[in-house]
């Protein structure tokens, strides 16, 4: 009797499939697998029969056929003769563009609102809770449509900027808010502008090096260099100097009213603005809650312990509270970014040409390739989601507290 003994060993009975821990997990999994296969087969057979009945097939050939529709906002070359695949690419880039912009502004808004909500100033903190409650309790679609309405129905038409008795005027002669979108000055990159840009990037590197050096000096000698003003100086002074030395290579192209419309500058369409702003304020309200919860999660004991060691409030924040709060804030923050990306699919409601509006909207309707289009659409979003989850896992593993 050296191995685990079992009176019925060797004699296999059918009841053991259900009663023996060694076999019953296989039994259940086998049943689950059979059910899954049956479901798949059922759906598959129906699909084949339905397609045959409608005289259709699954084919992705339509991707190479000219799309035949125009897209007003595109960062890459596109015209109505471009293929559906090209239209989808435009959509992907537009999705990423609005998601990227909204992530940045939502984070800024959310951090400000979240911190302000914890402010000891009663009025400010109440104002921020009103913001948070109002924005997160009303559907984002309604926000998108409201801001879109604001953009298209309330802002003046370009021709109202015309003439001597114009009813609207440009802000600083540089910004024009019209119902066709917002016009802002566009940078013109002259010769030598790359040197300015390169200087600026080097300055960023230099600030990081300076701060590292200051910390290591503190560790080695106990001498603390000032951090605040040298950072700003290193960051800005060289770039500004180079800018003027190179003879102001970067110029701004201002929008101008020509005829019935603005020319020049950069036009940001009303759909993009509506989507961008709505996603920012809506998600910002959620981020504010995450930030508040993150800061509150750091127990008062941590602040007290740090203060009792003689650290000044600013250092307590930077060295003790923030590193811990970020651990709590960043995971939900990243999932809010994911939500922004997924909610950007509501672009279709205001006619912003994101991937859902191009591939899942016009292309689908024109080609009738419903299954293929929706499948590709889902694949795109899945890829984004899974990549972001992967990044989040890497982050979580890298910051997880080392515990016994």
């Amino acid at each position, binding site marked *: *009797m*050296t*191995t*685990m003994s*079992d*009176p019925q060993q060797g004699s296999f009975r059918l009841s053991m499939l259900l*009663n*023996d*821990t060694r076999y*019953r997990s296989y039994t259940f999994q086998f049943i689950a697998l059979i059910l899954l296969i049956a479901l798949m087969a059922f759906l598959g057979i129906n699909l084949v029969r339905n397609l045959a009945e409608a005289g259709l097939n699954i084919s992705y050939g339509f991707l190479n056929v000219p799309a035949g529709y125009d897209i007003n906002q595109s960062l890459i070359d596109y015209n109505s003769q471009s293929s559906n695949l090209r239209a989808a690419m435009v959509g992907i880039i537009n999705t990423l563009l609005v998601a990227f912009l909204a992530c940045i502004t939502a984070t800024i808004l959310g951090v400000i609102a979240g911190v302000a909500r914890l402010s000891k100033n009663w009025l400010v903190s109440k104002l921020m809770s009103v913001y948070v409650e109002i924005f997160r309790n009303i559907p984002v679609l309604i926000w998108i449509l409201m801001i879109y309405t604001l953009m298209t129905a309330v802002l003046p038409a370009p021709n109202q900027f015309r003439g001597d008795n114009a009813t609207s005027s440009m802000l600083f002669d540089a910004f024009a808010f019209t119902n066709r979108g917002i016009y802002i000055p566009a940078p013109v990159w002259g010769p030598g502008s790359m040197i300015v840009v390169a200087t600026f990037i080097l300055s960023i590197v230099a600030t990081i090096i300076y701060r590292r050096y200051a910390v290591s000096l503190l560790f080695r000698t106990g001498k603390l260099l000032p951090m605040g003003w040298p950072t700003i100086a290193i960051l800005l002074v060289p770039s500004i100097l180079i800018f003027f030395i190179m003879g102001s290579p970067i110029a701004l192209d201002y929008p101008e009213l020509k005829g019935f419309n603005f020319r020049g500058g950069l036009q940001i369409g009303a759909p993009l603005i509506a989507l961008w702003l709505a996603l920012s304020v809506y998600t910002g309200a959620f981020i504010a809650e995450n930030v508040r919860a993150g800061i509150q999660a750091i127990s008062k004991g941590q602040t007290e312990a740090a203060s009792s060691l003689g650290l000044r409030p600013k250092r307590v924040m930077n060295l003790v509270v923030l590193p811990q709060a970020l651990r709590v804030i960043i995971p939900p923050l990243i999932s809010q970014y994911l939500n922004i990306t997924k909610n950007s699919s509501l672009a279709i409601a205001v006619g912003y040409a994101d991937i859902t509006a191009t591939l899942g909207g016009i292309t689908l309707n024109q080609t009738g390739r419903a299954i293929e289009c929706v499948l590709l659409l889902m694949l795109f979003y899945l890829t984004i989601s899974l990549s972001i989850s992967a990044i989040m896992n890497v982050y979580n593993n890298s910051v997880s507290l080392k515990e016994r």
Partner: protein
Amino acid sequence: MAEQAQALNVSNEVAISIENMNKWYGTFHVLRDIDLTVYRGERIVIAGPSGSGKSTLIRCINALEEHQKGRIEVDGTVLSSDVKNIDKIRSEVGMCFQHFNLFPHLTILENCTLAPIWVRKTPKKEAEEIAMHFLEKVKIPDQADKYPGQLSGGQQQRVAIARSLCMRPRIMLFDEPTSALDPEMIKEVLDTMVELAEEGMTMLCVTHEMGFARQVANRVIFMDEGQIVEQNEPEEFFNNPQSPRTKLFLSQILGH
């Protein structure tokens, strides 16, 4: 074997027999060649430093942990991978945990009647009578309608004992029942256990309460590094330990 039983002055009916049992966590060998026979009515205390595998040993007896090699027979039922055998053993072996593990969403009475009703299929009324009987026995019948969170640790552990007794087990396992208690509550739990022992319950206790061991145990087992290092009657065990490991352990816990 029978001589051993006679020597220990208990019945020669075997309650638990463990032969050559081994267990690994991954590649870590937690239990090594355990051989142990427990006779009906025996009170065994298992002692040893933390990580010596003593808790794992008694958790293997009711299949909370799976052993990989060897044979465990409880009350004539071999612990195999057959679910029916496992259920049979579990319903005959009571267990008390270090952290009581009462069900916080159920009242004390419901905690005690749950298993009799659902496992033993006892009618509810009868189950409640049994439960009240055992709650009286552990001296907290008046708390029957409260929730576990409203009781002190000692009271909770006594409820946990009553909950196990409601299944009318023939064997009781105790996994460090007093380790999570405040000092002033240890006694009330130990008193309950002593009473149980005096009624002839077969008991296996993992505990650091050496006073309890002297008072009620008829055998003390010392484990270290997953092995049974020494076992003896309590008098001999405490007064005349043989193994240097046992001596070291006893000097550490009885030192002050």
